[in-house]
């Protein structure tokens, strides 16, 4: 992003506004769905999917991850993998424990 010219930045600005609108819409949707009190499993999946979508919008556009350098991608890939290991931690705890 450091080489961004004024012109390309102006284009960015339009994208930021679009993303903002999308984020607002998604917030509205997830709150509305939550009032339906779905089955726990369904509710969790829907809420987390919407959150993940919002988060990726923020990461991709506000944090410019959509056009980042390889080194940053590599560092983040490693982090994501280890994050997944953390998420598996509770599974490793309960699986096969007979509780």
């Amino acid at each position: 992003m450091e080489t961004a010219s004024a012109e390309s930045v102006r284009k960015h600005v339009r994208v930021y506004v679009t993303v903002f609108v999308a984020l607002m819409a998604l917030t509205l949707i997830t709150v509305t769905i939550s009032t339906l009190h779905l089955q726990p499993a369904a509710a969790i999946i829907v809420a987390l999917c919407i959150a993940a979508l919002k988060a990726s919008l923020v990461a991709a556009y506000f944090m410019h991850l959509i056009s980042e350098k390889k080194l940053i991608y590599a560092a983040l890939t490693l982090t994501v993998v280890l994050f997944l290991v953390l998420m598996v931690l509770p599974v490793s705890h309960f699986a096969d424990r007979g509780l």
Partner: protein
Amino acid sequence: MSEAAPGAHAGVHTDHHAPPGFWRTYVFSQDHKTIGIQYAITALLFLLFGFTLMMIMRWQLAYPGQSIPFIGKFFGDANAPDGVMLPEFYNQLGAMHGTIMVFLGVVPLAVGAFGNYVMPLQIGAPDMAFPKLNMMSYWIYFVGGLTMLSSFLIPGGAAASGWTSYAPLSVIATAGQTVWLFGMICLITSSLLGSVNFITTIFQLRAKGLSFMRLPFFVWAQLVTSFLLLLAFPPLEAAGVLQLMDRLAGTSFFMPSGLVVSGQPLAYSGGGNPLLWQHLFWFLAHPEVYVLILPAMGIVAEIIANNTRKPLWGYRSMVSATVFLGFMSFVVWAHHMFLTGMGTVISSFFQATTMIISIPSIIILTALFLSLWGGSIRFTTPMLFALAFLPMFGIGGLTGLPLGLAPADIHLHDTYYVIGHFHYVVAPGTLFALFAGLYYWFPKVTGRKMNDTLGRIHFWFSFAFINGVFMPMFIQGLAGVSRRLYDGGAMYSHAQGVMHLNVFMSVCAWCLGLAQIPFIINFFWSIWKGKKVSDNYWDATTLEWSAATSPPMAHGNFATPPEVYRGPYEYSPPGSGRDFLPQNKPEEAR
């Protein structure tokens, strides 16, 4: 050297400061070399302190219930009435010995001191990428260390729930535990800032021509170590925050329902899970053992290449092994929890990953051993320590395998065998490597070398006594003696056959303390009186040796940015007729 010729630089940087004053030069310095020295001094003092705690404990283990001679009366009635150590005090000493050795001694020395001083020089950088952050890392570490020490002075004394601070014991422990948690949060923050700095520096500030496969192995070790610190410490920080909440806000993250202590039900809402602490703790603490060992391997690799006058055998495999090892260390944590009621499937999984992770360690150790083959070895003082590292770490590593196999661990878990195992890794292993590093880089820092006779005395006595301390622990552990026992097991009938070893081990521990005196004398004597030596005393190839001795401060490591033409260990290159080719020496026209 920008101070020497300010005029020559006019216009290049407009904000050229007057030479910084005393505080900026020696105390709040932003120069990586000064910070490295600050880390070294602080960490060495903590190591001495942590070792002293252990020497005091060893009295109680050798002569349970007897008054500690000479110093016993100084501990006060709350800790040692009539000089006889109370169990509570023993637990404090044990917990603090572990914490101080690991978090305040070895890691700051291996990473903070050696990493800070040597790594930027080895990659030809003017300094760390973020000098202010570097200064902050040190001072946060310092505050964390003082916080830990201060806990000895508060009512109830220091933390006493072991360096592992298992819940629920740690949640209901005295205030020392809260101080411990605050101290840990400082130390974790310091490590995080440090690792961000290290990784950025290695990626961004490498000299021209210094590709990754030309990095000295030490730099690789520091790189992987920093990633471990960066990504494994935050879960412990999270756990620390949760435990603080349990202690201060009365939450029950780690407190199970219906807990009754000494016949009294506790005023906790319950619903928490003590094993959650263990998961989060070991998620850090297993990678942490590689934080303790990788820099040591890095130091040993440098010294072995230099003193065999040969390239390292299998440099590339060592690098891949290190990276693989770093990654795997995140998926083995539950081998510390085989006895917490996990089923066979999960046990098998962690048992398998544990066996897999032993492979890269074996590769590295084998490569180092093979590097000796056919070398014309110089038995310098650093080399002696580096050579001793190999078998000692070997013993530590091999004795770890039975602990990683769930069936064997049922017998060995929480016995002195475990203590013996990991001390072989960290004491005659890592500590010896760190001593090797001190002897090796001393001439770079001071321009003088340490005395060899004293060095040899230090080495041989340390080597003998340290084995005397730790070898019998295997025997005791196999006999079933538990660790963390106030009387060393004297009250148990199954321990009777091996109790006599306690006196021997303690005497060895005290003698080990005495064996450090030649080192301390040597260290101070050599700073002022040691033999003056040249910039590249060891005839080494890596970049730090082409910088001036005690390189100038203020980002002034090299007069001009160095350029690198070859790999790190071009010793006795075939056909050149030379003993060594420094990394930054241009190719000659043949």
